[in-house]
């Protein structure tokens, strides 16, 4: 059994850090979504994580999973759009996987994989389809092999690399070839989630 790397308070800190990053970068996310989508990704996540912050305030969590499950359920019921159910399901899946008050790096790594699986199952995206999967997949793998800092770097790189891809899922797919040359907003917000995890 490995070292404990996240307890309930640290889970709360992670979510709070995501909320802060989303708030700070909302305009960037919206701008990216304007270029190849409908220009609401920043507003969607801001609204969602503001609701999560409210929901977690005073919420009694016994396990890391409680925090993440509550986060997921709140995202589902407040965000709407594609990213609401996708991120919501991811956090719910991670929550389900983390049933203790303290979790190890292995457990968190498995949970991140479970989150990815939830996104892929619900959204049906393959790697390379220019979605959040393209940031989450390399990030989860890097986390397992090399930890949170590596995961953050991998997510950022995965997000940047979506620029060259042609979208095959989500609204950006409507643009066909015109989607090439723009970074995917969902992959970009996934990078924020992993940056928050690494504390960067």
């Amino acid at each position, binding site marked *: 059994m490995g070292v404990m790397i996240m307890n309930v308070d640290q889970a709360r800190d992670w979510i709070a850090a995501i909320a802060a990053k989303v708030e700070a970068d909302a305009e960037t996310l*919206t701008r990216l979504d304007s270029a190849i*989508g*409908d220009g609401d990704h920043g507003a969607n996540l801001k609204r969602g994580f503001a609701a999560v912050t409210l929901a977690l305030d005073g919420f009694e969590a016994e396990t890391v999973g409680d925090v993440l499950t509550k986060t997921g359920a709140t995202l589902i*019921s407040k965000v709407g*759009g594609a990213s*609401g159910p996708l991120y919501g399901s991811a956090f719910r899946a991670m929550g389900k996987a983390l049933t203790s008050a303290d979790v190890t790096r292995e457990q968190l790594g498995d949970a991140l994989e479970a989150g990815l699986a939830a996104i892929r199952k*619900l959204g049906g995206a393959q790697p390379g389809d220019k979605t959040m999967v393209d940031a989450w997949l390399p990030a989860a793998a890097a986390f397992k092999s090399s930890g949170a800092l590596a995961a953050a770097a991998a997510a950022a790189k995965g997000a940047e690399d979506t620029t060259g891809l042609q979208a095959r899922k989500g*609204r950006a797919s409507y643009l066909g070839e015109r989607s090439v040359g723009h970074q995917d907003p969902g992959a970009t917000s996934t990078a924020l989630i992993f940056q928050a995890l690494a504390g960067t």
Partner: protein
Amino acid sequence: MKKFINDPGDVVAQALAGLAAAHAELRVDPENQLVVRGDAPIRGKVGIVSGGGSGHEPLHGGLVGPGMLDAACAGEVFTSPVPDQIVAATRAVDGGAGVLHIVKNYTGDVLNFEMAADLAADEKITVETVLVNDDVAVEDSTWTAGRRGTGATLIVEKVAGALAEERAPLADVAAIGRRVNERSGSFAVALTAATTPAAGQPGFDLPDDEMEVGVGIHGEPGRRRSKVTSAREVAALMVEAILEAKPGLGDNAIVLLNGLGGTPLIELYLLFGEVSKLVTVRRSLIGNYVTSLDMAGASLTLCHADDEILRLWDAPVRTPGLRWGS
């Protein structure tokens, strides 16, 4: 950004408050962003629920009433509603005969309605779903999220709503909705981009002499740009795009010549005049119905009708946005 709003973050609820003030015959819940027929649930009648992002008014909230929707769920601007809303609407209109969800084919709408249908099943409400995907500007392939739901949504809602009003069973109501969708195609052209209250500036820049061809209704750009051409050429372009993707839709057609929000009626009628030379019009509807905020532009929807579809299209309807018959 110049808009008649108070606060960019609170547009949808406040617009629904206006709808409530205007239409006492509807139960409007601005907070939860729901619009429900005043007499719902109706015992033995299939309930019809639709919804989607706001900014497309009168779709969907303005199409609630006898002969059409039983309830509509309004998401934030251009953002699908959340499962909670959809379940609440489903519950509110379940008269024991099941509920039909009419869902425009966008990832967000599909996922949220799917989740809601699962939750409703937990409550033992039978839900069927009709997915509307009429926009031929998008290729229908595994390489895309599939065709978008646009103008045909209104025809599906009208026709399915009329059949439900006759107390037809859920399977039949769903079947006619799917039939209308299969026999429909749409194509849109934009002259300007929409400005969402949240973004505060147009979703894309469009030079003074260009138009977006095959544009969506959520502020998303089209597949290509071209120089602005004559109404005659725009009509031909739209008709050809539809008939190429779905041959035969120009016969015996219900034609919806729809404004995207910022285009005046005089232009829509002029454009319809050109369209009417290219297809066989059985019924027509011209105006702003499936809009994209203040976007200047128009979409054409052709539905290759049969007698049953025509009969249900003609049936009485009484909603804020669409009303005819007694």
